[in-house]
């Protein structure tokens, strides 16, 4: 899962980034409104953490610009403005959730996972695919009821596939959602991760769709 973090305060942004990466999220960071708007319009993100008081362009107008451009990714507003009028204005501009500074990192993470899950049309907090299940509240995977140990990259790939289990996940999108924006991506490395995952999740399996992408399937091919 990949997030866009929009926060102009460098120490806070560093702390949030550290905390989110520790929870296996891939992350891009924008420190002003213009960069944020550009990234949000051109890249694919599973969710956005948006500060409102930004240099160059206010957070609310960035959000409105995204929505006007048809970008529908879930947006969590993270702001010091805690009046209900501010929150109402945020939701009217198209926000999906609102968190007031200061906050606990656990709350941010839980809310982000829930946002991503709901955005992929999964109502319940637990998403299952055959023997595999993903608990979005905790961000953990189980296979046949037993915890599954995954590396950060494996978690990113598998969470992406299980949340989009009803369709094929294009390869390009998968790569975008797994690596940080500034990471040096080796096109083969996704293949390597998929191969490792296939061993861990059997009998569920990841089907490669030639020239297109990947799909998570519940069990043995018929």
């Amino acid at each position: 899962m990949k997030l866009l973090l929009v926060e102009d305060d460098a120490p806070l942004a560093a702390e949030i980034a550290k905390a989110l990466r520790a929870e296996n999220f891939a992350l891009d960071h924008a420190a002003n409104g213009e960069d944020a708007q550009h990234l949000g319009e051109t890249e694919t993100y599973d969710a956005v953490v948006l500060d409102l008081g930004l240099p160059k362009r206010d957070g609310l107008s960035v959000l409105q610009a995204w929505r006007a451009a048809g970008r529908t990714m879930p947006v969590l507003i993270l702001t010091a403005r805690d009046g209900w009028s501010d929150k109402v204005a945020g939701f009217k501009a198209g926000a999906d959730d609102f968190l007031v500074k200061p906050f606990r990192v656990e709350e941010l993470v839980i809310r982000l996972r829930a946002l991503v899950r709901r955005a992929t049309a999964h109502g319940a907090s637990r998403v299952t695919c055959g023997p595999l299940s993903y608990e979005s509240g905790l961000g953990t995977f189980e296979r046949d009821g037993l915890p599954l140990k995954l590396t950060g990259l494996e978690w990113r790939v598998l969470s992406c596939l299980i949340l989009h289990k009803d369709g094929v996940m294009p390869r390009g999108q998968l790569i975008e959602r797994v690596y940080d924006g500034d990471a040096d991506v080796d096109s083969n490395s996704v293949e390597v991760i998929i191969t490792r995952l296939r061993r861990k999740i059997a009998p569920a399996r990841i089907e490669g769709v030639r020239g297109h992408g990947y799909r998570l399937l519940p069990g043995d091919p018929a």
Partner: protein
Amino acid sequence: MTPPGRLRAVAGPADRPDPPEKPVPAKPVGFLHLGSLQRRLLLAALALVTAALLVAGLAIGLVLHRFVRAQLDSRLDSQLVALAASLQRGPGERLRLDRALDGPPFDRPRSGWYWQVRQGQDTLRSESLEGRDLRLPGPARPPRERDPDRPEPGDGTGPWDESLILRIRVLPPEGGGPPAHLVASAPAQALNGPLREAGLALAAILGILGLCLVAGTVAQVRLGLRPLERLRRDVAEVRAGRRHRIPAKQPAEIRPLVGEVNALLDQNAANLERARTHVANLAHGLKTPLATLTLALSDRTRDPDGGLADLVGAMDRQVRHHLRRARAAALGGGTRTRTELAGPLADLRTTFGRLYAEKRLAIDLDLPAGLAVACDPQDVDEMLGNLIDNACQWSRGRVRVTAAATEAGVAVTVADDGPGLDAEAAARAVRPGGRLDESVPGHGFGLSITRELAELYGGGLHLARSDLGGLGVRLLLPA
């Protein structure tokens, strides 16, 4: 039944804001009210009218006096002319008239209508004198050189002590004899009587005129000052929040004043906006480092026993509490606007639908169309947001917001189906500085801040059990 920490309220000293100023009832602008414009204008008008009427009365009286006197004089003068013409005073002859001249009114004894001719020792007189002499005032003056035929005026007293008006003519000596003194008189009553009558009529007419003028002035002053009364009502409407500014359509004399007042209102609004921005900036400035600290301390190696995190939490609560207080003070002091409830409530339902998306709450709204309160829209958001937030936190699935007009204003009830609150806990929840739930961070303070805001507007907050089973909070706001 009530778990500890059912509700959260404000930590911190109980520094309640000052209650809002009560509107001053309009004082009637009484006629005798000291320092009133009406009184000043009316007194000035009264003084001017009285002075003008006095001067006019005196002038008219003088003219009348001269007119009546001239009439009398000309009558007496004709008598003198007749006397001079019929006077026979040849040398060595006794003085005599060649015809009788005692026509009315000179024939009525003691009437004051007399004549008399004296030359040396000879005297002729009218019958009305009954043989007595008419005393002349002082020594007879020599005839005027300019016009010896013109009689001179004079005042005198008759033989019976009656006041007389005299005309005196001196005929130059003729044939070596002494000059002849001709006198004709009329009673002073003949002058004063008509003058008194005319004076009474004149006084009556001038009095009526004066009354009309004063009445006209009163009407004029009332009419002229009416825009002031209208202005007072406009200002009262601004204060009550039914208007933002005073209408600019005013008499030219008041327009500059209204312009100034409107500029003042605009400046007030700008100051309020600035204060809010300031508070928001302060909030941002303080909370971002606090957020950084919170995240940094979530690393257990930096804060092994959680003591530092507790300190940061305490700082955060203090900052929030005082920022909210500052906001409430800035909001409550301003002018009031009319805010319809339907829009804010619909927005808040959307907001809470997303904030509590995981709980999948049903939030029902039930209010009549067009229901409005006399509160600032941001305050309405704050109060209702706090109440609905509190209800959503404790609800098991349903939150209901109902609003209705009451005789005292508008009552908004926010009910939930949560665990509810016993009486003692309810009292603690709304007490300033009281806080039920110390363990949950985030938007707290809701009930007591809402109560403070409501009381700033002259409303109130009451807790009860709701018919959904949980807490029912009833918020009273002015309509």
